[in-house]
């Protein structure tokens, strides 16, 4: 049932009921030709009279498996609609909740036409079930139909939601600045021990993958460029190319992407789960600021660890280039390293490290913010984590471009 599905039907729709072709498994055969529709059911329906007073006699077991047949049979019997209709329940052996609900549904529909259904002679047990499921016609007509959202309504709601998110983001940044001020004024208020563990998880535990991927990227870069450089006899230049592109660009970006996937996603999922299980609310009630307690240590950890991982990626990437230089381009290791030393300026390395510092802070901020904004159970946490990773990656590339242009225009 969709969220916007109509809860109501025109009360006359049963008059236009058409037999369905497929044979439902549990509900007995549909009304086709001369077949007795009630043959396979556990109940029986007989109608007496008509016109002014129609008495429908139900007998046997009225249960979930037959309730659709019951509903159709009853509606077919009530067509054309008599002035009064009584349903004699005297011979009903068993009535379960589903069948009672169906009887009430038909009754309410007839109510709308001013001809309510009367249930008579029900045995006490059956009457009790009817009472549980009894629907007051007046109440039923008061039920509001669900509102269908129009396109403008949806656009409006999305805009308001966007504005709310933007405000939330600003609130978050403000809180983080306050946390920073508090940390500077009173360093003992920061969770240093937690920060250490986080650094270990994000940094030390991530070493193998950073080393492996850094090495492979350096290797691939050297391999791809070696063919072109050979053409010009500029074999030695492979060292310049690999080292500078790694230090300035690929090292920080590659590491940031790995850390987003490993640690950023973990931060978002962890904090998101805490949020939906009311743990964040519990922190507030204990007088602990979740920004200082949870977010600040994570920002510190990634801000510190990402430049370190970047240096490592730069070094092993160059080693990857060295392997190709030696095996494919007939360079000696000494020549490759000497060329690397000449090519690389201090600013190449520093600019890369500045980038990775910014990346680290941004990843932690975005993922923690998304986690704190999680809503709605397990699915909400999943959505939060996806959104945190996608937003982080998007911001990484945008910031990388912006910083590259900035550094270039500073002529550094």
């Amino acid at each position: 049932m969709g969220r916007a599905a109509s809860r109501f039907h025109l009360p006359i729709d049963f008059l236009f009921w058409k037999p369905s072709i497929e044979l439902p498994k549990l509900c007995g055969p549909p009304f086709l030709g001369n077949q007795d529709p009630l043959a396979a059911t556990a109940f029986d329906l007989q109608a007496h009279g008509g016109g002014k007073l129609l008495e429908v006699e139900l007998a046997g077991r009225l249960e979930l498996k037959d309730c659709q047949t019951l509903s159709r049979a009853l509606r077919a019997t009530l067509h054309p609609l008599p002035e009064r209709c009584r349903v004699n329940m005297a011979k009903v052996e068993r009535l379960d909740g589903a069948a009672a609900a169906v009887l009430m549904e038909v009754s309410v529909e007839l109510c709308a036409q001013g001809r309510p259904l009367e249930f008579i002679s029900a045995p006490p047990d059956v009457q009790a079930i009817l009472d549980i499921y009894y629907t007051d016609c007046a109440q039923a007509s008061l039920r509001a139909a669900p509102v269908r959202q129009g396109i403008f309504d949806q656009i409006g709601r999305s805009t308001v939601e966007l504005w709310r998110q933007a405000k939330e983001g600003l609130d978050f940044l403000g809180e983080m600045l306050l946390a920073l001020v508090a940390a500077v004024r009173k360093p003992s208020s920061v969770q240093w021990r937690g920060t250490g563990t986080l650094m270990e998880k994000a940094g030390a535990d991530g070493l193998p993958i950073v080393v492996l991927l850094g090495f492979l990227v350096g290797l691939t870069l050297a391999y791809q460029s070696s063919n072109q450089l050979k053409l010009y006899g500029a074999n030695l230049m492979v060292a310049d190319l690999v080292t500078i592109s790694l230090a300035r660009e690929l090292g920080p970006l590659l590491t940031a992407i790995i850390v987003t996937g490993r640690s950023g996603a973990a931060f978002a999922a962890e904090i998101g789960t805490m949020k939906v299980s009311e743990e964040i609310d519990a922190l507030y009630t204990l007088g602990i600021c979740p920004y200082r307690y949870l977010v600040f240590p994570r920002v510190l950890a990634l801000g510190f660890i990402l430049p370190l991982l970047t240096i490592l990626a730069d070094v092993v990437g160059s080693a990857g280039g060295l392997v190709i230089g030696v095996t494919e381009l007939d360079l000696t290791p000494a020549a490759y390293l000497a060329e690397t030393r000449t090519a690389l300026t201090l600013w190449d390395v520093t600019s890369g490290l500045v980038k990775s510092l910014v990346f680290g802070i941004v990843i932690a901020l975005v993922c923690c913010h998304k986690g704190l904004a999680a809503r709605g159970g397990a699915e909400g946490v999943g959505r939060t984590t996806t959104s945190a990773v996608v937003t982080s990656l998007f911001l990484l590339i945008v910031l990388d471009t912006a910083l590259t242009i900035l550094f270039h225009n500073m002529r550094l």
Partner: protein
Amino acid sequence: MTAMIRVEKLTVGWDGRALLTDLNFEVQAGETFAVLGGSGSGKSTVLRHLIGLEVPMAGSIHLQGVGSPGKSMGRPAFGVLFQSGALFGSMTLADNVALPLKKWTSLDAKTIRALVQAKLRIVGLEGYENHLPAEISGGMKKRGGIARALALEPSLLFLDEPSAGLDPVTSAGLDDLILALSRTLGMTTVLVSHELPSILAVADRCILLDKQAGGAIAEGNPRKLRDESSDPRVQAFFHRRAEATREQEMA
């Protein structure tokens, strides 16, 4: 009367450590049976064994028409209400209740919608059809869970703390509903609870579990146990006396 559930020499526990040993009880058809005990006494664990989510360390459980309960993927033979309601967060309340009907019957959408509405109405959630579980209160989630448990008209219903966390009026309304369903439909109900008013109102029989004793310390009609039992632990439970329990522990 036939036994709907037969539990023989059941031992339950975690990580190889027995929590409760040698549990023996029967639940008769049409009866409302309560599993009682303090917090941490293993009530919910016993329930998880009865519905087949856990495998007993020893002993056997027999459900009439099912055999030993297990994680079967067939049409469920009973309805279960979990402590938190366990409604699916990504679905509306109506979709949660409709799910078993869509899966296990071939009723058309219109009939299912009518059934879902009726179920939500009897648990007092009319008008919340299109709400997500995250948008309603804890008590409402629990009632939504009952509506879902009742969807397939089960003859056996397991309820984990049905009235905990509900206001007295809603809780009493829920008790009335459980009583009415078991009396009129002959539904067998097993409920885990420590809400005394609710237990005394609905349970025909009960079993009282105790952590220290590592098993059941009493079985019978809760009102009779309250009035007639000479066991200080039983008296402490039914008369809400903390000291008696503590003295017992000290001794």
